[in-house]
């Protein structure tokens, strides 16, 4: 495993100014400048350090359990008439892809001499992954979580607390991921010296979108090797991943962007329907603007006020996408589809019954689009199964009737 350390190996990756095409940058107030600048100056250098890479790889292997399996889902394949592989990020320690990033960032934070870690979380997976690495490294951890999400993802709140983290409810706005992110940024403004902010997705000011994508790029790096082993070819026909902020999709797409024959399918949350007024399908509903210090696509009113999104899945309930995805969308390199709450629930049940795997509701959004693709029997499809569904059992069961 090696982390992609050179900038701009691909026209889809970040450029030296911190932009993906027209998107990205660092739209930060001066109060955040020293923090973000310190990170920008140092992240590539730190990530390129062999000692850092060795520690990162060791932890991914022994602590997270990587490489995560690429599982050939035979009954699912039969049903949809294609060769469907699931990238099992759900089998990672803590149950989702989020830990790939938190391991990377905690090692970085240590090298920057930080003593205190803050994070935002939606589904709680990133919060748990952050609390976990903080326990591992003995660092103080504060996680901001929307008060609505605290209710719908209660098991993860308990896990964070057991891991020694302080969970602070975000009570402004829609009381979900966007607001938790605001609160985490405010905390960082108020603690400019000793604190590192572990952002959980490919969002926020440069260098976060690039840094998080690089830590998550281990997903597609492994997929290539595993496909070669299993199919004799490194590239599939399709890579499908759900997009909240976009980190699991960024990781799953990262090493495929330059091969045009690989179709990249990003699946957003349509909520109750794209045009129902209760949706989080940013590429369909958004326009370019600035959210959380990044120029990207976001859902907003005509006046530029950020709109409150809706998704049954807390991890996708975000009114923006990362700038990498905005660029993939604008350039047409990736196809953006969306799944409704009900489609995702049905796909979650289907995978449970066909393969014995209960997926996270987020990941179920990606699975739900298998039904919509014009698949052919010998086509290879990789679905990023970004997380497991334990945290969503209550929601699944509530909708069983």
């Amino acid at each position, binding site marked *: 495993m090696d982390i992609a350390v050179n900038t701009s190996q691909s026209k889809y990756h970040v450029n030296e100014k911190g932009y993906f095409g027209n998107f990205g*940058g660092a739209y930060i107030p*001066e*109060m955040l*400048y020293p923090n973000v600048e310190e990170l920008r100056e140092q992240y590539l250098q730190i990530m390129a350090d062999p000692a850092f890479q060795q520690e990162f790889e060791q932890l991914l292997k022994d602590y997270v359990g990587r490489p995560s399996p690429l599982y050939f889902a035979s009954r699912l394949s039969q049903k949809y008439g294609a060769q469907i592989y699931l990238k099992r990020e759900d089998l990672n320690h803590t149950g989702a892809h989020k830990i790939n990033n938190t391991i990377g960032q905690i090692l970085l934070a240590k090298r920057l001499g930080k003593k205190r870690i803050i994070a935002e979380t939606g589904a709680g997976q990133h919060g748990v992954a952050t609390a976990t690495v903080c326990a591992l490294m003995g660092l103080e951890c504060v996680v901001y979580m929307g008060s609505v999400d605290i209710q719908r993802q209660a098991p993860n709140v308990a896990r964070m607390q057991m891991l020694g983290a302080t969970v602070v409810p975000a009570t402004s*706005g829609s009381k979900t991921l966007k607001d938790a992110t605001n609160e985490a940024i405010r905390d960082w*403004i*108020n603690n400019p010296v000793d604190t590192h902010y572990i952002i959980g997705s490919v969002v926020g000011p440069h260098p976060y979108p690039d840094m998080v994508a690089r830590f998550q790029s281990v997903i597609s790096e492994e997929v290539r090797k595993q496909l070669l082993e299993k199919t004799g070819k490194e590239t599939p026909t399709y890579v499908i991943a759900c997009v909240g902020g976009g980190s699991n999709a960024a990781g799953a797409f990262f090493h495929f962007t330059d091969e045009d024959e690989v179709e990249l399918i990003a699946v957003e949350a349509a909520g109750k329907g794209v045009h129902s007024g209760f949706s989080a399908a940013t590429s369909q509903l958004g326009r370019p*603007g600035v959210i959380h210090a990044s120029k990207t696509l976001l859902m*907003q009113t005509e006046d530029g006020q950020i709109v409150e999104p809706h998704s049954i899945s807390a991890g996708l309930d975000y009114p923006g996408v990362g700038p990498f995805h905005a660029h993939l969308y604008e350039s047409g390199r990736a196809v953006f589809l969306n799944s409704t709450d009900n489609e995702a629930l049905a796909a979650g049940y289907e995978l449970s019954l066909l393969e014995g795997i209960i997926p996270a509701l987020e990941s179920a959004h990606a699975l739900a689009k298998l039904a919509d693709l014009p698949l052919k029997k010998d086509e290879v499809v990789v679905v990023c199964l970004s997380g497991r569904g334990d945290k969503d059992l209550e929601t699944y069961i509530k909708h069983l009737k």
Partner: protein
Amino acid sequence: MNRIDQLFSTKGQNILNIYCTAGYPALHDTVTIVEALQQSGADMVELGMPFSDPLADGPVIQDSSTRAIANGMRISVLFEQLKDFRSKVTIPVVLMGYLNPVLQFGVENFCRACAEVGVDGLILPDLPMDEYENEYRPLFEQYGLHLIFLVTPETTEARIRKIDSLSKGFVYAVSSSSTTGKNKDMTGQEAYFARLKAMGLKNPVLVGFGIRDKGTFQAACASSNGAIIGTAFVKAIENSTNLQADIAGFVKGILA
């Protein structure tokens, strides 16, 4: 001459700049408040354009923004309200806001409207310095608008110099690294203010964040050209039933 420059050329010390969110507490209070502030002796007013996600603000200004948006405040409404305000108000007025609503309004449209109604300057905390320099500066200058940048105790000297060279009107010295409305005291900040003073910047310096009463105002003024009061004022008028009297009382409490 820009009204901000005029002010500093006639009165260099103890400048009192008061922040209020436009459209708050009620939608059509904006101009009433600006007038009352002028009458009460404030030297300058900073009007906040409310944003749904004000990252640099604490709970009080967040709540005022939420309320103003719910009242119906938006940039086009604000310009409508300010249409004739220059027939009554002579003190400088700067607009403060986050970048996204301005981008959606259109930066050139925005600058033109500011010039038409008689706005003197802008504070856009999340507009990056190099983007201003490379994209927007000629536009702002064409419309005679002063862009005011922030510095903090963590800002390096080289960067302060760069900020000073790009800023016009004044430099906004954030008193401590914090969101708005934190009641940190001003002791311990002397070294920072002294450092700023010793740098001999081309712009005057106003201190903001945490200035809330006579004591903190005077402490800030001791080593700068004046100070900006936001949260304390927003709180003071939250439930006001007599804006003129309450504003006069507030300003008197600071200046008397």
